[in-house]
């Protein structure tokens, strides 16, 4: 179906409007993170030279510039430190309530994540949440000769531990 006002978009993949990262190995050097995610592993890189473990994962150690890094697992459970339930005006592509939380993974690491599978009013500060991995729409990659290939994708959020 043609898009009103933008008939040229029919059948095309508008990459700059894509909501999710370009996860395929053709487009970034941390695609292993998404491969691990597919196995329900939440990972980052550790520098074999200086032991630095940054998150998000890197391709060069920001501390010592070493390229000798290895993939290590992070905890897949954490505690909710702060959260907000967005009930109005959520961005295009998302549904209300859209719940965001600052999560403490322990091991001195915090991250911002969405909390899914959770009703409005259900979450409390201090609750335990666990990693949830889900499929998102595939990315379309244009190969030689204009052939369009679909690269499957996953993304992550956290969900309450029942």
């Amino acid at each position: 179906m043609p898009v009103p006002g933008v008939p040229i978009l029919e059948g095309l993949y508008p990459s700059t409007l894509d909501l999710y990262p370009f996860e395929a190995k053709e487009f970034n050097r941390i695609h292993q993170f998404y491969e691990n995610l597919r196995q329900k592993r939440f990972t980052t890189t550790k520098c074999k030279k200086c032991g630095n473990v940054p998150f998000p994962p890197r391709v060069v150690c920001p501390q010592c510039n070493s390229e000798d890094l290895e993939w290590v697992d992070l905890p897949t459970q954490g505690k909710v430190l702060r959260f907000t339930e967005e009930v109005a005006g959520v961005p295009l592509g998302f549904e209300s309530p859209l719940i965001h939380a600052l999560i403490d993974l322990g091991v001195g690491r915090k991250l911002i994540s969405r909390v899914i599978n959770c009703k409005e009013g259900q979450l409390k500060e201090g609750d335990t949440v666990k990693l949830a991995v889900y499929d998102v729409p595939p990315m379309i990659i244009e190969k030689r000769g204009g052939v369009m290939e679909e690269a499957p994708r996953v993304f992550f959020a956290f969900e309450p531990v029942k």
Partner: protein
Amino acid sequence: MEDVAIVGAGQSVFARSCGESIRELCFEAYKEALEGLDITGNDIDASVVCSAPEYDKQRSPSGLISEYLELTPKPTFYVETVCSSSSTGLRVAWSLIKAGLHKTVAVIGFQKMSELSSRDAAERMGRGGDIIWESPFGITMPAGYAMYARAHMARYGTTEEHLAKVRVKNSHYGVANPKANYRKELSLEDILNSEMITSPLKKFDCCANADGSSCIILAGGDVAKSITKKPIWVVGLGAATDTMSMAGRKSLTGLQCAQEAAKQAYEMAGVKPQDIDVAEVHDCFTVSELLAYEDLGFAKPGEGAGLLEDKETYVEGKIPVNVDGGLLSKGHPIGATGGSQIRTIVRQLRGEATEAQVKDAEIGLVHNIGGVGQYGNVTILRR
């Protein structure tokens, strides 16, 4: 080296929907900025154009705006730090003049948000965050500041009523500002009973998207004195950043980028928080104004709400803040906002803020934040 002054400051009316194209919108602010000056467009040596690009259909808007203002063939370029773009523009213009490259520079900020649906605008706003690690969650500025509000409440006992008092004040002053989008006085109950947006922030805790433009004209000291009787001197400039990802923040009870920018600006100007006669702070949300009181040193950490209780940030108070209605009343056309804040302080220091003039204001401060505390800019002006 020559000092740098603001010689002209203008803005369009900020409106939910301006009904004009970005070039027409920019001309309004430019026209007001030139009013009363003994120069014409021919005397402007360069322009810096500021907006957040994700809302624009037009790519490379600086060339277009420059042409429409008939500034061609003078150099022009584009500067962006999301919501603080035009404060960054002022910083760049100051440097161009200080370096001796140009004598007179126009900083033009604009945003036209009405071309997008509000949910589309929200989605693009989210792309001002980290598009690999945070935007895919759908997180946007309201949700980010909501978490700051939660953290401030948990640590200091700040209440939703405290936050609402920011809007009570700003709505009071917004009524008198002919450039503001929202001009109704709101009661504490109106605000506390308004619909929830993202807990604990309610509809009236949030500023509205708007269309608007601003223009600040700066000149070196000698030129400034020759073209206006009331140059306003740029005496303090501070700029800092914090992590794009909110997970990287040291704490959520204050904006570190604002604290650092304030420190730099106070030091450069040789003044202290108590020397400031009037301030414009980035109240994109009620909580943002409260954080600003503390980050700028108007109150100690955790004591910002006390300034509101004692009405110390009203015109008659110890440190009047956002007495033009703030972003909460004016609306927040991203790229134009910093220039509008600067314009308000310029009018205050010139004694021309007829709607709500702070008596004998001599030193003013502008606090302008990009994103959820990613970019902090503090500017101190003096008459």
